[in-house]
């Protein structure tokens, strides 16, 4: 990362966000795809997953003008996904005695996935992705202009 510092750093920053948002989108898609999965390898219904974002740091920056924004962890350069965690909320119980996964009382445990929430998260991820694409294109435009000086 240190070697990339300077004019190309914003590319890496935006790219890290694009990767993170795409992973978030993958997880959301997986949640929606498994919204009605009642059996998994671990047993029980599918459990909703969430991504956890944290700032990404470059511990050894070489770009001197940015030293002012240094933190004890290093120079902030984008975002990373620290983990994918399971949503601890309880499963949705639906009365369906004929279902092969129904319990003794006739209730089936469905995943704790709410399609509406997932759709909202999906829109949020799309917008964030677009914002970072815009930033990426702005970086490219600036780099092209700088390369064109003196032509």
């Amino acid at each position: 990362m240190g070697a990339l510092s300077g004019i190309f750093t914003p590319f890496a920053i935006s790219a890290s966000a694009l990767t993170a948002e795409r992973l978030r989108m993958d997880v959301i898609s997986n949640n929606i795809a498994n919204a009605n999965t009642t059996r998994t390898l671990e047993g029980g219904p599918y459990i909703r997953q969430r991504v956890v974002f944290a700032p990404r740091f470059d511990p050894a920056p070489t770009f001197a003008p940015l030293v002012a924004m240094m933190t004890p962890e290093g120079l902030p350069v984008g975002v990373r996904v620290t983990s994918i965690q399971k949503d601890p909320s309880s499963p949705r119980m639906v009365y369906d005695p004929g279902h092969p996964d129904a319990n003794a009382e006739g209730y089936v445990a469905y995943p704790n996935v709410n399609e509406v929430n997932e759709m909202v998260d999906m829109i949020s991820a799309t917008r964030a992705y677009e914002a970072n694409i815009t930033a990426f294109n702005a970086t490219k435009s600036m780099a092209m202009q700088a390369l064109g000086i003196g032509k």
Partner: protein
Amino acid sequence: MIYPVAPTQSVDPMLILQKAMDSLAVQHEVVANNLANIDTPQFKRSVVSFQDKLKAALDINQPSDLWRTNPMHMPMAQKISLDGFKPDVTTIRETIGRNDGNNVDLEMESGILAENNLLYNSLADVTGRYIANIRHAISEGRQ
């Protein structure tokens, strides 16, 4: 009564353009980082300021060891140095944007990004024209 040491002072315009473009590049990097962390809980946005600082650094009336106390005194060139000039990066920790403690505003960052981009491109254009003028002076004189 104290008079400015140097009523006219020229600083290499290329140097000013270079410092301004470097500062804008830093600002762009900071905005890109804010946008990258738009969904990071507890992230606080940073801002860059350099215009006032650059203006102050170029001010011929800035405090100096040399002072003229009479307007009839000979003006002397005061050295204006931009060495070590760098923009200020500040993290805004006071504002609360959303419930997750993140204070990045997509519209505001997009606005700064667009403005910054235009300003950088125009400075690149000005730098190019300045070089073109020099080239003109070098080559066209022969004809």
